[in-house]
């Protein structure tokens, strides 16, 4: 039981590390982030919305992961966000779009697209494990037998 709790804390910490790193890196190189976002296969009119929404969402998830009450929601949000990134990466690899420059922060941008896919899948898996462990934490089975009513 204790091992599972430690694993849950480690998963939350890894996700916090990822989201904080990605969001702060984007903020520190904001002009470049805007330029790269303009080259994504969305209309350029979405750029002002996306360049603020994506890092803000990442920071919000990182903050929510720190607090017990918001952790389940944060893990689900993390799973949704990472799944969306993974689907996007998959679409790029399947040549659904023409080649697209990465819009990730810091050293993550140096990953190739296949490496990016593996990286994203790893964090999707972590989010799923985190959700399962968080559920177990709150829904610990209660053993009821005759002694309970004695």
């Amino acid at each position, binding site marked *: 039981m204790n091992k599972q*709790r430690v694993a849950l804390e480690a998963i939350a910490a890894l996700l916090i590390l*990822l989201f904080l790193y990605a969001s*702060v*890196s984007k903020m520190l*190189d904001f002009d470049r982030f805007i330029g790269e976002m303009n080259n994504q296969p969305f209309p350029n009119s979405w750029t002002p919305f996306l360049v603020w929404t994506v890092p803000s969402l990442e920071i919000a998830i990182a903050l929510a992961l720190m607090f017990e009450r918001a952790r389940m929601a944060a893990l689900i949000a993390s799973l949704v966000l990472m799944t969306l990134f993974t689907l996007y990466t998959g679409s790029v690899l399947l040549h659904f779009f023409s080649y697209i*420059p990465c819009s990730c922060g810091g050293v993550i941008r140096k990953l190739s697209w296949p490496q990016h896919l593996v990286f994203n899948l790893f964090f999707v898996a972590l989010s799923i494990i985190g959700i399962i462990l968080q559920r177990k934490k709150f829904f610990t089975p209660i053993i009821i037998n005759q002694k309970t009513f004695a």
Partner: protein
Amino acid sequence: MKKIKWTFMTLAIVLGIGGAFATAPRLPQDCQAATQYYYNGNYVLAGRLGIDYICVTPSAQVCTYYKVGSTYTPCMNGSYCTANCKTGNPAPKKAKN
């Protein structure tokens, strides 16, 4: 348990924010705000990032330079790619007016 939790959290916050600063471009903050040039034998005006050109990473090349006095100093890394790029790399979107 709380001690473990806050040790993990502190590590994650310090490494996340510290790592972002550590891997941030070490070039002067205003280099991208300066007029950008690319080198094709001569230094030529690069245009607007994301509209006229992009810097495709990963690449060890210098994508754009900016002028400090009369010297051209590297600014952005990557391979310079414009709308006429025929390398299979991304073609920047043209601005919609």
